[in-house]
């Protein structure tokens, strides 16, 4: 009930400056203001009363919407677990949900142990995969976003780079792994390089498209004001391209997370992809299934985090 009292307090605060301003006015006006003030207060009370009455029904309504939002996904997950359980009963070699869950409890009770480079906790594996994605992706952003700006802003650059991008973009990022191994002579930077290559295309393309789609109205404002190229970039292009850029980043992160698992399977070392491969060699199928869930959940969280950021930077 304390929460219900809040609207009245707010209303009162909103009214205060208006009355203060009227103090200088003629007496009659001040009286009017008082009248206004009371009407506002009664209005506020009315709001409170409105909220009061259907309090019980509001709770049930909230419950209903929660149920609506929660129940279907639970059914979906239930279906998945059910099919999985069925397959595990019939198939034999695939462990069912119960042993996998038990193994997951064991794994996550100590995620950050370290017995040498080839036997580390699942936490370390996830973190080192994320680190590779972060570095490769960050480098791709540093190069891809400015390049996208240039391509979107200058026709010549666009025509120059368009055939290159069209040619290189459809190539599977894993095809670049040998080149990375050749150049860097090490597994770790080679995997990062693969991430870099797969992240950079969506970043360039989305940024360029965003720049080209800056509403003509905004560009006309820039032209009438005769803004410098720097002001145009920072005050008009960047804010209006940001949503497109974030879409590019989201796509990039998605692909990067797909690719890192595959790349690590090939390069070895520490990482969730390598871990999957290692557990396959040990024939620990429970761990492979756990890894599948972990990869899915981390990917989902990355996506959601970026969606959240994108929402904050979308105007109107």
């Amino acid at each position, binding site marked *: 009930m304390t929460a219900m009292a809040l609207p009245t307090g707010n209303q009162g605060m909103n009214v205060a400056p208006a009355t203060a301003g009227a103090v200088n006015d003629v007496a009659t006006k001040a009286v009017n203001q008082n009248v206004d003030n009371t009407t506002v207060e009664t209005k506020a009370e009315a709001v409170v009363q409105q909220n009061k009455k259907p309090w019980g029904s509001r709770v049930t309504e909230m419950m209903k919407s929660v149920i609506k939002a929660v129940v279907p996904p639970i059914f979906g997950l239930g279906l998945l677990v059910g099919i999985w359980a069925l397959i595990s009963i019939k198939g034999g070699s695939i462990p069912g949900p119960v042993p996998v869950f038990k193994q997951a409890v064991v794994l996550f009770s100590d995620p950050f142990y370290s017995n040498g480079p080839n036997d580390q906790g699942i936490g370390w594996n996830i973190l080192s995969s994320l680190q590779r994605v972060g570095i490769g992706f960050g480098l791709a952003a540093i190069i891809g976003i400015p390049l996208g700006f240039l391509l979107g802003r200058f026709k010549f650059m666009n025509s120059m780079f368009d055939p290159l991008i069209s040619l290189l973009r459809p190539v599977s990022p894993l095809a670049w792994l040998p080149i990375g191994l050749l150049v860097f002579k090490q597994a770790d930077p080679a995997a990062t390089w693969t991430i870099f290559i797969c992240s950079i295309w969506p970043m360039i393309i989305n940024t360029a498209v965003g720049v080209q789609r800056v509403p003509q*109205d*905004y560009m*006309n*404002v820039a*032209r*009438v*004001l*005769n*803004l410098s190229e720097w*002001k145009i970039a920072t*005050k*008009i292009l960047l*804010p*209006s391209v940001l949503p497109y850029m974030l879409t590019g980043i989201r796509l990039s992160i998605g692909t990067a997370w797909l690719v890192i698992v595959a790349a690590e399977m090939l390069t070895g070392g520490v990482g969730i992809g390598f871990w999957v491969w290692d557990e396959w060699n040990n024939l620990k199928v429970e761990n492979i299934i756990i890894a599948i869930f972990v990869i899915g959940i981390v990917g989902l969280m990355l996506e959601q985090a970026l969606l959240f950021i994108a929402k904050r930077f979308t*105007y*109107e």
Partner: protein
Amino acid sequence: MNTSANSGAKNIVQIEKAGMSFDTKNGRFIALRDIDLNISEGEFVSLIGHSGCGKSTLLNLIAGLTLPTDGVLLCDGREIGGPGPERAVVFQNHSLLPWMTCHENVYLAVERVFGTKERKSKLKERVDAALAMVHMDHAAQKYPHEISGGMKQRIGIARAFAMEPKILLMDEPFGALDALTRASLQDELNGVMAKTGATVVMVTHDVDEAVLLSDRIVMMTNGPAATIGEILEVNLPRPRDRLALAHDPVFAEKRAALLDFLYKKQLKKAA
């Protein structure tokens, strides 16, 4: 045809034999031809005509946003080669930048025009003054999506006036507003005009608005290849009061002349 209002005042805009054609998929489209018009300093000129006749095209030519394919346009004796802050534009859809507050939107313009000569505090004062002029000081820290359409249009006007332009160009500035909001903005504009004595070119399709605000009304023929049909002088005394004018015979006569042109001489076949 006499293209100048009072030959005594200095011509700030001169348009000579200007024409505009666009290259389209179906070949060359002639939008405007043979536009001759002089606008003198401090004058309020309206462009009126049916939709699609080329009013915006003509305004964009004066703004320098597009360049003419024929003829020449001069501003202050110099050829218009592109847009510039001395010709401020109030766009039909306000065109405020949504990621900036109202204050910041106006500041961007003020900074561009006066930033090299004045200190930051002085620039801020200019912004505050412009917002106060259109009675929007209370919304300075609001974002465009937080205010109504009429308020946005006011900010757009404040932004244009804050630049202290030689000429103010307005493309149907009140077109998207309801009648009451439009009336109050027209009155406000009249007040601002009286204070600043600015030169204004305004596109409108509203007959009453044209007569209420203008010194001269340029009536355009239907496109394609539209040109100036007639020019109507509105020598009603200022300040003008919309309530008094409602019963003024001169006002009624000017209004009738406009309607006559638009709905008899240039009647547009229903498309």
